[in-house]
């Protein structure tokens, strides 16, 4: 794919190569922040690269957690034990989650993988960050030029494949036909379980806890063999807005309830206001029941 080859000789790559070689020459200690997509940061000590971190590649922590070597709660316990260190190296070894040599290898792999991710992406600018501290530095640093050469070689290897892909561009999906997974390798089965037309090789690397170079190369091979497909159009996003309920309309203030004013005096009853007297048969004369009682009790009136 010409897009991949283009990125090798582009200004960004030259910029990174020049900045890294200057750091090496000057035996710089600190960070070299690479802006771009995915970008990242190279940590150097005395001119040697001791760590590379990039959003484009899983770091040592993600590799351990995603691969299932250690659970999230155990990791949190180790971080607490180590006084908040983001890379609880001593705890990992003491609790038997991994050996010292294994952790060194994980860190070296993560360093090379992140360098590959930066080189495979777009580099806009490089800026030194003397105070930046590495998360999980390796003991023996890499010569910057050699590290860059290794990353470039990997990118060239992927470019040479029949169906080259970039780590953060193509979003493969399973093939339309039913696939017999019997003859597939473990990584291929794992990738088939996670591809959905939305995830890139980089996303799949994080998902499976594997290196982004390994996953990118495997995705490229699987695409070439027809084990995966790349859709021309992205997975559509459904927009649901109920027509009768404009859910995003700005709320109008509710009408104020009728004011209730408390009466200042007790209510006064007006005789005949209820109308009950009109519904009763009116007395025809004053000599009714009242007169009868007056006569019987002998009142003066």
């Amino acid at each position, binding site marked *: 794919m010409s897009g991949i080859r283009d990125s090798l000789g582009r200004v960004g790559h030259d910029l990174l190569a020049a900045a890294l070689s200057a750091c090496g020459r000057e035996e710089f200690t600190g960070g070299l922040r690479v802006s771009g997509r995915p970008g990242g940061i190279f940590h150097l000590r005395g001119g040697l690269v001791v760590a590379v971190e990039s959003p484009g590649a899983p*770091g040592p922590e993600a590799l351990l957690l995603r691969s299932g070597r250690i659970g999230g709660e155990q990791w949190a316990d180790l971080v607490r034990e180590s006084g908040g260190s983001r890379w609880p190296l001593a705890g990992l070894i003491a609790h038997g989650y991994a050996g010292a040599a294994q952790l060194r290898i994980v860190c070296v792999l993560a360093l090379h993988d992140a360098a590959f991710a930066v080189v495979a992406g777009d580099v806009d600018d490089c800026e030194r960050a003397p105070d930046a501290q590495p998360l999980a530095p390796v003991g023996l640093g890499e010569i910057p030029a050699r590290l860059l050469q290794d990353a470039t070689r990997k990118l060239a290897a992927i470019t040479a494949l029949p169906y080259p892909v970039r780590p953060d561009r193509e979003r493969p999906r399973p093939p339309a036909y039913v696939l017999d997974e019997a003859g597939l390798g473990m990584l291929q089965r794992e990738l088939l379980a996670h591809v959905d037309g939305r995830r890139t090789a980089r996303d799949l690397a994080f998902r499976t806890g594997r290196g982004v170079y390994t996953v990118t190369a495997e995705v490229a091979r699987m695409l070439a063999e027809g084990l995966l497909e790349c859709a021309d159009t992205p997975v559509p996003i459904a*927009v649901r807005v109920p027509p009768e309920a404009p859910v*995003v309309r700005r709320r109008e203030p509710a009408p104020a309830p009728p004011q209730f004013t408390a009466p200042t005096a007790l209510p006064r009853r007006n005789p005949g206001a209820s109308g009950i007297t009109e519904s009763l048969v009116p007395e025809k004369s004053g000599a009714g029941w009242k007169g009868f009682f007056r006569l019987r009790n002998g009142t003066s009136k």
Partner: protein
Amino acid sequence: MDHKALTLEMRTLREQVTGITDTALTAADGLLIAADTADSIDPEALAALAAAGLGLARRTAEATDRGTLRQTVTYGSHGCAATYAVGDTALMVVLGDEGMDVDRLHLAARPTLDRIESILTEKASEGV
């Protein structure tokens, strides 16, 4: 409302910030508007949770005199979930993996949220 423009904004944000895995747009009452999520995620449940979470965060900010709420971020061992208010009637939730640069997401999300709010307000003014 311009559905195409809305989905384009959501997709562009995912393309723009490395590590974004899913995005969902929901009304403030938790009703889902649009979701760009993996099959493993129930978008309706995500919408309801995000709305409830943002509501709580907003009340917390008010009760503690923290000013206007900007966003909430929930961190887990496999990534994080950031929820942003879109005006006062909608919200957007963005899920990312461990590699996502959250500061970069906040920077990239602001203009996207403004544009999404315009698209949504456009719909409301039409009275559909």
